């Protein structure tokens, strides 16, 4: 795929091919226009870059390590390299975006922050940066996810955030996002909504990708230094798709690099209980953008399922929909049971317990023995650490969750 072609699909007009857009109540249109202007100004301002870079270095702990994985590599039959977003402050990639958006909110003079969260990682990251910057923070979280991720609820409250339980619908990420949008429609002149993934109305998908693209920029340089070549494949889990877009973006024009996104197959792709929007969804509009969506014939959104709260979402970022249709990225899926094996496998072989979200990508790679030659490196985005999931996984019957 040529450079020029990718650039025209870069989301500058709010669209990625046929996907994306801004399907929101009229009330939010001026707020999104304001955000877009503030984003352009910030991206062009060296002072913004300097402040963000400094905080990423000293507060978040970037650059994150690129780590070899000898025993896991032997298991796979190809050298696997781990991009360690789990080592960031708060334990996931989410803080890259939360920090940048919070700094942007300050530039806009908005001191009240709204966020939605599924696994709680984005909520924790947002609560963290709000504490650091002295901003008010309100996090919407589905009741079901509050149960699955009790520790993260405690962490958010400890840092002064208000966590609002959402009891509508499936009580998971989808409903938390809907509720966060309702708050923003009511408070947009004074509040900024920090969306946690590459979803939502324009300019969010492009903005969140920009703020997560540091993952791939660092990893590409680190691969050239450490492995002496580009990876054969880059693999990441896909919920909304922010860690995947973040690591994919720097490799988009490296035609020889395969980009693989791993969705959650839940109880199985044909079970009706999964979160594989790209593999099993159809184009539709949810939360402000057009993308692949799990829905029924009448356009009602179909509840997603995944053992992992961070992947349990019926939509997906519009840029992934575009990359899928353009054939630039490949999407696959891994079941709950396989993800639990991946969770244990990386701990046993490398001493790294990944987040259940990441465990999907681990499990897919683990099952690919023979796919890559012994000298073809594979780059895995370890989007987060698994501490938050240990309690859930250790519960009796976790395998059938």
């Amino acid at each position, binding site marked *: 795929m040529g450079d020029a072609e990718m650039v025209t699909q870069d989301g500058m007009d709010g669209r990625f091919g046929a996907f994306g857009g801004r399907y929101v109540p009229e*009330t939010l249109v*001026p707020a999104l226009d304001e955000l877009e202007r503030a984003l352009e100004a910030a991206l062009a301002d060296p002072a913004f870059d300097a402040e963000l870079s400094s905080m990423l270095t000293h507060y978040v702990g970037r650059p994150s390590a690129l780590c070899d994985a000898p025993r896991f590599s032997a298991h796979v039959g190809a050298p696997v390299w781990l991009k360690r977003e789990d080592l960031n402050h708060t334990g996931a990639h989410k803080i890259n975006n939360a920090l940048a958006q919070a700094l942007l909110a300050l530039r806009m003079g908005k001191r009240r922050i709204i966020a939605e969260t599924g696994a709680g990682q984005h909520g924790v990251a947002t609560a963290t940066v709000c504490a650091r910057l002295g901003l008010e923070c309100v996090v919407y979280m589905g009741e079901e996810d509050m149960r699955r991720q009790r520790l993260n609820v405690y962490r958010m409250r400890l840092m002064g955030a208000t966590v609002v339980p959402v009891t509508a619908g499936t009580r998971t990420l989808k409903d938390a996002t809907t509720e966060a949008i309702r708050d923003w429609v009511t408070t947009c002149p004074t509040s900024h909504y920090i969306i946690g993934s590459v979803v939502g109305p324009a300019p969010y998908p492009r903005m969140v990708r920009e703020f997560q693209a540091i993952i791939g920029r660092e990893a590409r340089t680190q691969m050239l230094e450490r492995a002496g070549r580009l990876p054969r494949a880059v693999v990441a889990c896909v919920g909304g798709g922010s860690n995947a877009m973040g690591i994919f973006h720097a490799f988009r024009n490296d035609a020889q690099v395969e980009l693989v996104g791993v969705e959650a197959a839940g109880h199985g792709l044909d079970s009706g209980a999964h979160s594989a929007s790209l593999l099993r969804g159809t184009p539709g509009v949810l939360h402000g953008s057009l993308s692949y969506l799990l829905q029924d014939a*009448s356009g009602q959104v179909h509840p997603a399922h995944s053992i992992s709260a961070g992947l349990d979402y019926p939509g997906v970022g519009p840029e992934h929909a575009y990359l899928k249709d353009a054939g630039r990225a490949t999407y696959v899926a891994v079941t709950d049971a396989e993800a639990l094996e991946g969770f244990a496998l990386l701990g046993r072989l490398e001493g790294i317990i990944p987040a259940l979200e990441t465990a999907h990508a681990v499990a897919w790679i683990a099952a690919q023995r023979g796919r890559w030659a012994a000298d073809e490196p594979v780059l895995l985005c370890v989007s987060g650490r698994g501490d938050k999931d240990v309690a859930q996984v250790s519960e009796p019957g976790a395998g059938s969750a």
Partner: protein
Amino acid sequence: MLTDRFSALRAGGRRALVCYATAGHPDPVRSIALWQGLEEAGADVLEVGVPFSDPMADGPVIQASSQAALAHGVTLDGALALVARARLGIPVVLFSYLNPLLAAGPDVLRRAADAGVHGVLVTDLPVGSDPEREAWLGDGPLAFVRLVAPTTPQERMAEIARHGRGFVYLISRLGVTGVSAQLPSDLPDTIARLRAVCALPICVGFGVSRPEQARAIGAHADGVVVGSAIVRAADASVDEAVSLARALRAGLDGADA
């Protein structure tokens, strides 16, 4: 038919009472009785809400009505069937999120018109957001009613007014649908700003629940839209919702006195 209705009201110096009800709420049979009762009580336009699983612009009352309707199996097709069966004498405007309309396919506008629908209003398709789909809605057999928010700058109000048909729906306040104790104090200013750039009738909705609020709005706007208050009353009984519409009608007509 929408235009005729508003011309007649204007000629008579009266304000429009626009009543919202979710199709299939409280259940399909009572839904029809409710609409017919609202017409009898003096509603000028009926807005029929299309049930949707994820109504991000709606507050708790309309969300719950949407869930109840879905539990009765009423989706867009069901809503159209109910409209056809109700045989109303007042214009009907579909109030929908975009996704159910997209899922229903390109011929849905024709099917809606055949069922007796006159207009369509889409909560999450603001002016300029998707020219292709806006043209589909605007060039079809239904009047494509557009929304203005309190946050909309006046230049954009003018653009929205140019694209609108039937009437312009002015959202009275920031936020989702639901009843409010008080109307925003700057509402008359907002109406005046819109009026200066808009030739279409202006109907104000969101938060209106009481006759005196309808009367206050009627002093500035061409009509009021009442949604959550009617849905909430219909949760109790159809009669209660119809009595509320009657009281609102009286309040609104008092605006001219």
